[in-house]
């Protein structure tokens, strides 16, 4: 007999599975439908496996390039590329199994298959071959189908030589040359990973700087650092075409009116992602779609179709796993009737895990000025931090943007070791409406890198101690 659920969730990524667990906790009879392993891109083909790969690169980088500073040298330092890839895959598999367990623990049903809308209350599930294997009815359906790598005709992805991030993390062998098109977080992380392992990497970015959404000072600092690591960077550069020439790819780029031809074994197309809005009968429902994203009310996450909700990458930027999870929780709690403060989309941390790491939240200096704020900047370099000195991480700085009128923390930008961990404090500070004074007066443990945040706040008030 056809099963009836309170909530059915289409997609088991960080949006879908978290929503499912929360729904289970709140007592909803819930099913999550996912064609592959639970955890989505994040756990299987994104956040987690790349962090695993990057750790290899960091370790190798530390020993090879800085080992001598610490008195550690190796006569012959080698690595096994395939083992690096295998380690990454194992980690994804392990965590995905843990998620399956969590789903079960919270009494959520799990159907492996591809779900399609039959009506607004009914989903049919198909296997890989397209055979219908199941169908469920549900009072509410949450779409959490995620996104996939965006492609453009000029860069014809063949998944072998012209690849997306998914292929980049399971290459059978290390490429000698790699061209990365797009200098967002994904492009930059792969550029760092492969460059450290010895691949000749060129990064092509259309906008003025790499990590173009970050504060300009941060981008410039990272450019300096990357250039030191012999990564070629072409900014304000447009890719005209990429064509396969024998076993190599030739990329034609326009930079400042000049046309250049570059060749590489592999070309990584990392120009962004786009919502998964096709192939599962969304058109039948009449759900409103705008620029490949489902339109929702950003407090309830309900679409224009009553009873149909959408969360995560499929509703558009900022395309981040942590946002999808929070949207999932709020969506389900809203269905339960619990009151929530809506997500503050201007207080979402963004992280890039190259070395030095980059993390930020809130306004960049430019955006704050454009928004009409009279800004006060607090900066503190890692160079002046005792802890950074002790651990040999003197590259980077903290930059805090305050509103000069009320000393509100408008934005925070960190480049340097552990930046992605340090950012949590500032996000919390913003969430709880801290001011420059209150951050400065919060006792930070010594010696820690976190002291740089306290000092940067003090610096904004002209009261920094160590600078």
């Amino acid at each position, binding site marked *: 007999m056809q099963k009836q659920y309170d909530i059915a969730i289409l997609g088991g990524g960080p949006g879908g599975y978290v929503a499912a667990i929360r729904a289970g906790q709140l007592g909803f009879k819930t099913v999550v439908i996912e064609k592959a392993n639970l955890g989505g891109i994040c756990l299987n083909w994104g956040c987690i496996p790349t962090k695993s790969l990057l750790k290899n690169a960091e370790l190798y980088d530390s020993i090879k390039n800085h080992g001598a500073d610490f008195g550690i040298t190796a006569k012959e330092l080698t690595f096994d590329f395939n083992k690096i890839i295998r380690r990454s895959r194992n980690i994804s598999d392990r965590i995905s199994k843990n998620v399956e367990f969590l789903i079960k623990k919270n009494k959520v049903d799990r159907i492996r298959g591809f779900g399609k809308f039959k009506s607004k209350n009914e989903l049919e599930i198909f296997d890989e071959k397209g055979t219908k294997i199941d169908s469920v009815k549900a009072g509410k359906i949450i779409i959490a189908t995620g996104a996939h790598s965006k492609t453009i005709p000029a860069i014809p992805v063949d998944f072998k030589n012209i690849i997306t991030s998914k292929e980049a993390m399971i290459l059978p062998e290390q490429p000698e040359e790699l061209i990365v098109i797009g200098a967002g977080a994904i492009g930059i992380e792969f550029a760092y990973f492969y460059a450290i392992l010895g691949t000749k990497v060129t990064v092509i970015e259309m906008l003025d700087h790499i990590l173009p959404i970050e504060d300009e000072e941060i981008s410039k600092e990272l450019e300096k650092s990357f250039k030191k690591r012999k990564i070629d960077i072409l900014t304000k550069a447009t890719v005209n075409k990429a064509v396969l020439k024998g076993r190599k790819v030739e990329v034609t780029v326009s930079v400042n009116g000049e046309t250049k031809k570059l060749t590489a074994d592999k070309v990584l197309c990392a120009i962004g992602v786009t919502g998964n809005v096709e192939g599962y009968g969304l058109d039948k429902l009449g759900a409103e779609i705008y620029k490949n994203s489902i339109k929702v009310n950003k407090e309830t996450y309900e679409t224009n179709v009553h009873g149909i909700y959408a969360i995560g990458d499929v509703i558009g930027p900022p395309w981040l796993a942590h946002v999808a999870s929070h949207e999932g929780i709020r969506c389900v709690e809203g269905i339960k009737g619990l009151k929530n403060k809506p997500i503050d989309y201007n207080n979402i941390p963004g992280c890039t895990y190259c070395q030095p790491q980059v993390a930020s939240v809130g306004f960049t200096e430019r955006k704050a000025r454009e928004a009409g704020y009279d800004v006060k900047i607090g900066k503190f370099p890692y160079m002046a931090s005792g802890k950074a000195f002790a651990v040999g991480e003197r590259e980077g700085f903290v930059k805090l943007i305050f509103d000069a009128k*009320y000393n509100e923390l408008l934005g925070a930008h960190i480049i340097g070791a552990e930046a992605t961990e340090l950012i949590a404090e500032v996000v919390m500070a913003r969430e709880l409406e*801290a001011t420059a004074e209150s951050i400065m007066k919060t006792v930070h443990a010594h010696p820690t890198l976190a002291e740089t945040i306290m000092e940067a706040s003090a610096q904004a008030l002209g009261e920094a101690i160590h600078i």
Partner: protein
Amino acid sequence: MEIVMPKMGESVNEGTIIKWYKKIGDKVKRDEVIFEISTDKVDTEIPSPATGTITDIKVNEGDTVEVGTVVAVLETNGEAGPGKKEGSTTGIQKSSEVASIDENVDAEKQAAAANGILEVAMPKMGESVMEGTVIKWFKKVGDKIDRDEPLFEISTDKVDTEVPSPVAGTVAEILVAEQETVDVGTIVVKIAAEGGTEVQQSSPQETVRQVEEQAAAAVSMHDNFSGARLGIKQENVKSNRFYSPLVLNISQKENISFAELENILGTGLNGRVSKKDILSYIEKRKAGKVKVPAQKQAVAQTYTPSESAVIPVSGEVEKIPMDNIRLKIMEHMVASRDTSVHVTSMVEVDMTKIDNFIRENKDEYFNRDGVKLTYMAFVADACVKALKAYPLVNSSIEGTTIIRKKYINIGIAVAVEPTGLIVPNIKSADQRNITGLAAAISDLAYRARNKKLTPDDISGGTFTITNFGVFGTVFGLPIINQPEVAILGVGAAIKRPVVVEVDGTDAITIRPIMALTLSHDHRLIDGMLGSLFLKYVKETLENFNPISV
């Protein structure tokens, strides 16, 4: 030594010197009153911290200065006073952490202590705590004691705590017995430090700093964040709400009074006022869409007209400037009238049973417990019971939220001649029986009339009783004591002929009849609830059972 304007409560930041009892050159004894101050909370007399001669008076009568300002200088004839013996005083031990970090300094102090007899004073357990009771001595005279070993246990109205010995040595003399209550700063014990004979006295402020810090932390964690430290100007920083540093910064920059802040509806987590909320409030205020809360408006109303309006006079007049208390009463009354929608109901209560009980038992109670039985204790008791039955009457209104208090602190209006009126309250009145209430009422009245009230006494009330019956008034329409929502007026019990039913027959008899009037805030308490409350009080009093005393 310098004598400073004392801090008379968490939120009191300044005080006015009303009267100097001493002039320059006068000799004063320790604890002798040297001046009287008035703050917006309470008037009080300030005793001298030490024996000596007044060498300078820096603030004139009538002047208002900030807390901490030096008001006079006392030459102490070499006797130790606060601040003077910083280096040599033995009792200074801020905390064990400090002691361990700063071992050298501490060792020096101990060496100094080794030569003397140290006097340990009753510690000050919070800003507004003026006295403490020794509950238990852990040591007796002749006992050896280690530094930091508990010496005695004290109880104050804020906290109970153990006081550790500031020094290792032998207990030389115990000056205060168990259960005895003494003023803060009174010497309670003398300790002969190891191997010493020279007499030293620890300055009370310093001896007690350690415990005081703990107590302060325990008493008011919340105040750390409530804005006072961030420099925000507030009439009253006691609040149950959390304000983010940003909200406090904005309110300061935009001149949002604390009363206004308290009335802003919060949309954040658990109703917290967010940046968005306060900014939208400011927008609305600019657009004139917000009524600035009554408290603030009242100030404007009370002060401006009296300055500008010309009063026609047709004979000789005397112009008397209002004192602080009068100004405050004026302000509070106008604010209350503008805040609450006053509705008053009345019942007549037959006080026969209580009257008989008091007449028969008052001597016994007075001789046995030292308690004077009055109608007020019975009325207070009936109110406590009625408040339990109708807890909405024990509430406040905060914006559009009802704050229903789960504690009952009954305010008792006390006329204080010649200044006016003050309303101290009986804390946790629901924990007291009639005898306990009677004792509390007479204690509060005594202390109110003798300027011994503390800020604690007059804050935190939840319901007020005003007894105009003592002056013979039969009934009156009282004004609510904000932020409460009801006040009970007690009229005089007068013997009147009334119709009673005796064995099924109506008869006219003489009974003591007392009118009770309840003024309640119609915003929250409608006529039915007000009447039910009064009925409950009436029935409790009329059906009084002596066993309940």
